Every structure is written in C-alpha cells, then in structure tokens.
C-alpha cells in the first residue's frame, strides 16, 4: 500500500518510516501535492514546534492539499495537533480540520512537562483505530502541548489534565502518542489505519 509521509520539516521521520515498512507499507517521504494526493494513506508526522511546521507546510503549498485530501489522514504527535484550529505553541493557526485549540500541559507537583513516557489510553468510544487493543493499553508519549477532549476524541489520557490521545472525525485521525514507538499497541493502531483507514 502506498503511504505518503508528509515532510513537515521536523526531524525524526526514520522511526515512523521504519514502523510502516515493518507493516508492509510502501512509504514515500514527500512534500509534493500530487504524490500526497495519489497515496492511499497519508501520515502527517511531526516532532518540533507548531509554528515552524505550519510555516513549512504553507511554504510547500500543502495547507489546502491536506485540508481537501480525500484519503485517510493520520496525524502523529505534533502532526495531530496541527489538525486542530490553532495552537497555543507560538500562537499559530493550524489546519482547522478538527475544532479546538491545542494548549500547553500544566505543570504541577509530580506532573512534569514534557509528558514523557508510557501512559494508559482511556477509550471513550469505539473507533476502527482502537480495534483489537487490550484493555488498559499503554502508549509512548512525548509532548508538552495537547488537544482538548472534544467530540472527536476516541481515547483520552491523563497527565495532570485530561487530554485527547486519539482523535477521529471522518477521514481525519490523530494520535498524540508515538505509535511507531509504542511496541505492539502502536503497531496495531498503525495497522488498523493502514488496513481500514478511517471513515
């Protein structure tokens, strides 16, 4: 299966690429509109900050490409945050595919930011992305900002505050954690996305 991995300027693309390859996907890392449109699945990865990533997408002319994509789209980590309307990080407008604003996690006694490590997913409603996951599945998170638990949230997570861990609305989905680094749990989610897409 042809999977386009969008080049949003962040580093750390290797791990996503390898994880998809382990699942048998034919991955192309690209910022080309036609290549992205032609792919059967599209992944928006991202490690880094929201504003530079949006600037890079804009410079590559990809904002509309992503907004009007017809194939299933999965945002990972920062890539998921970019799906929302805006981010407090750099106070930047994002893609606006999902309603809501990404905000900074709140530090408190024993709650360190970045949220870094393995934490439990709390299923909220059924989604093809979560098919076959064991109860209490844990995933690997690394982030300082997070999206709210809104109507599109299918699984939440708690680190001080509760936030969206997995979102899905029509063809658009996102994972705040790193499925490519979440062992069997992450592989299952990526495989679900590759096989079934989202809708």
């Amino acid at each position, binding site marked *: 299966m042809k999977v386009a991995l969008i080049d949003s300027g*962040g*580093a*750390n*693309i*290797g*791990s996503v*690429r*390898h*994880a998809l*390859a*382990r699942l048998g996907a034919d991955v192309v890392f690209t910022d080309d509109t036609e290549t992205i449109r032609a792919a059967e699945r599209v992944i928006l990865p991202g*490690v*880094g*900050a929201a504003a530079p990533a949006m600037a890079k997408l804009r410079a590559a002319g990809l904002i509309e490409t992503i907004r009007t994509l017809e194939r299933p789209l999965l945002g990972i980590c*920062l890539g998921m945050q970019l799906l929302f309307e805006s981010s407090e990080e750099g106070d930047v407008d994002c893609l606006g595919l999902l309603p809501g604003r990404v905000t900074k996690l709140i*530090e408190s006694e*024993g709650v*360190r*930011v*970045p*949220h*870094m*490590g*393995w*934490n*439990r997913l709390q299923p909220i409603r059924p989604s093809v992305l979560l098919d076959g996951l064991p109860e*209490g599945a*844990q995933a*690997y*998170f*690394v*982030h*300082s900002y997070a999206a709210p638990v809104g109507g599109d949230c299918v699984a939440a997570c*708690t*680190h001080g505050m509760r936030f969206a861990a997995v979102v899905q609305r029509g063809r658009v989905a996102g994972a705040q954690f*790193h499925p*490519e*680094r*979440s*062992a*069997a749990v*992450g*592989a299952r989610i990526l495989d679900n996305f590759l096989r079934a897409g989202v809708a």
Partner: protein
Amino acid sequence: MLTRRIIPCLDVRDGLVVKGVRFRDHVTMGAIEDLALRYRDQGADELVFYDITASPQGRSVDRAWVERVARIIDIPFCVAGGIRSVADARDVLNAGADKVSVNSPALERPELIAELASEFGVQCVVVGIDSLRDADGEWRVRQYTGDPAKTRALARRTLDWVQEAQRLGAGEIVLNCMGADGVRGGYDIEQLRAVRTRCRVPLIASGGAGAVEHFIAVFREADVDGALAASVFHGGEIRIPELKARLRAAAIEVRDAA
C-alpha cells in the same frame, strides 16, 4: 497515569556494546542489535545508546548502527555521544533516534542545548550529566568521561548545571552519579533527591543499580521518572519482567512488561 521507566543503557564502542566498571576496563557484552531486541522483548520502556568514545575522540556518532536499531525496534531510544551541533543531531534523529543526549559538548558550549531545543523541540533534547562529589562535599560536573585519560573535573556545580540546562531547553536530565556507577551498591539517592528539587523536567537516575531494591528505593525516595542501568541487565542478574513485577508489588506504576 504516567509510568516509571526502566531504561537499559548500552555503551557502544566500535559498533559493539561494552561495559566497564567506573568507566574503565571495558569488556564486550554483545552486538548492538541483539541486545536492543532482547531488551525490547523483555519489556524495556526505552533504550539509551552511548557512543562512549565519540566525544573524547571529537567525532560524531556513527549513524549506520542508529539506522539498524531504528529499523528493528519499536520502543523509543536515545542516542548520546559526540553530538556537537544541530547538524549532528539531525543526522541521528533522521536515522531514527527519538532523542539525542548531549553531555560534554553542552559543557563546552551551553548554547548547543538552546539550538537543539529550538530546532527539534525540548522533548528531543536530553542533557546527560556526569557528576561526582568532591572533597569539599559539593557535587561537580565531569567532562569527557568516556576516556579516563581525558576526563576533566569542572568547577561547575551539578545543581547549577541542572538549572542552567533546563533554562536553555533540556527536556530531560539523565544524572549519572559517578561515585555509585559500576559498583552496584544502589543509586545515589541523596544526590538524586537534591537534583530532583531543582529539576522540573523528567529526571532519569543513572549509576549504581545492583538489585531490585535499588530501583524501588530510587523511585520511592528520589521520585525520579526513570531508572537507567547497564551491567545488571547485561549480566542477567536482573530480568526486566521480574523487576517490573516487583515494582508493581511495591505500588510503583510501571508499564506492562512484554
């Protein structure tokens, strides 16, 4: 809730995993990929690879093995050793590492931390600190510890450096307590507690693990986010599934072992 991390550390020299006592007399433990897979299968939460000779030799990490590791494992890993610039870090991250850890080069030029944080985000940037208590009772930082002939004692106090590193953009601190390292007498709880009070980002304990009780103690008493160890895992004295079962029995939250 966020679980406490168990992190095997693999010291890499000439493409092999090695282990020494108090940073000296290294013996070969095996191939990088074999050990990486073994720990992944046992339920390690994360791996750290230290290219222990890169920094003293003034060269960057060999990205070939980073790529090989990235291809086969599906848990996060951090690479340390000889990362002196944004370009070096980009190479390692593009090869598939999740985080980079800087130590001696950050002491040479602290702005490196800020540059990495601004380019890749603080969550990618780990600052490793080698620390030893001096005769006057102060913990101070050591540099170039990968090579005993080049190791330097700095005037910089460990607690000051912990704060400075966070101000510059460290997303995580790994504190290697050299006085405890390699002798398996337990983590340096006193020092880790002191650092914890100054450390708002995740703190990883390193140096001294010899028994399961040491892990329980460091999580309970020093409130660290993760515990790193090498020889007790390499030698098989502690197996991660048993370690996690014991931690859970002690009411310390850990990820389900494989």
